[in-house]
């Protein structure tokens, strides 16, 4: 049986492979705090969003979470659930951000929004499912600060890669 693939499918596969590679390389680095990591794979998501639109970015992001977890052996573990909820949240907020009238956000804005949404989403899931203790919320500002830092850095990198100054499409 031959599955018909379009040029877009192949492009998404290439970009997702790139994102997965970065994701796995990054998992080799130790993390100072659970939940904190640079999230450099999101650079790819933002570049794809700027260049090819929201639909491709959503595919690349979700494929990265799925395949990354399969390769790292975390599929269907709490780690995977947190990663997935974060990715779904950030893709959701990017969908909204794409609909901003006018010139809209640039790569830094998109990246920052995605990072904050990712952190908020996975933190909420962690609190609801795994550690339902009110004291956990003390970590929240710290984690958001990390998200602000890494989100901005990722955005600047993404901006350097994608030089096109254009409104993102859906």
């Amino acid at each position, binding site marked *: 049986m031959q599955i018909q693939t379009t040029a877009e499918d192949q492009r998404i596969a290439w970009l997702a492979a790139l994102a997965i590679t970065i994701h796995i390389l990054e998992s080799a680095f130790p993390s100072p705090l659970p939940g904190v990591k640079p999230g450099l794979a999101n650079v790819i998501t933002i570049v794809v969003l700027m260049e090819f639109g929201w639909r491709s970015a959503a595919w690349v992001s979700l494929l990265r979470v799925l395949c990354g977890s399969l390769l790292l052996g975390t599929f269907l573990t709490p780690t995977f659930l947190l990663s997935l909820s974060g990715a779904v949240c950030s893709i959701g907020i990017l969908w909204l951000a794409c609909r*901003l009238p*006018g*010139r*809209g*956000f*640039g790569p*830094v*804005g998109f990246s*920052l*929004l995605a990072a*904050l949404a990712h952190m908020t989403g996975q933190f909420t899931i962690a609190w609801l499912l795994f550690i339902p*203790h*009110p*004291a956990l*919320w*003390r970590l*929240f*500002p710290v984690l*958001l*600060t990390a998200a*602000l830092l890494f989100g*901005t850095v990722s955005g600047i990198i993404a901006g350097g890669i994608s030089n096109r100054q254009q409104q993102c499409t859906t």
Partner: protein
Amino acid sequence: MTRADRVLMAIVLCSLPLLYLHFWTPGAADYSDSAGGVTQGADAGTATVLRIQSAGTAANTTPLAPDRQIQVPGPMGESTIEIRAGQARFLESPCPGKVCVHSGWLSEAGQLAACLPNRISIQLLGSRPRFDAINF
């Protein structure tokens, strides 16, 4: 950076200190024992209620205020819990080992005594327990 980027960055930078202020101010959030559903006032650290758990029944919380003795029925018979001067203990129990009685007085929030044969446990609760558990 576009204008939207700068506005977003400004909003985030302004709201982060507010988040720190909200979550890091003592007393801003309620860290009471969620299992007992107890909220207390200023005298944190000291116990104010006693939770009595008997097998097969819902946990029962009772204030430490009037000194008294409480009969708690279990599979082996009735155990007697004594409350005096803000402390609590097993006074009598029909069990063979009397480990519960020898546990003595419980005086601080978080302390627990249990009678396993009679399947009854008592624990002091307060707004800020000094520890989660103790091993002997």
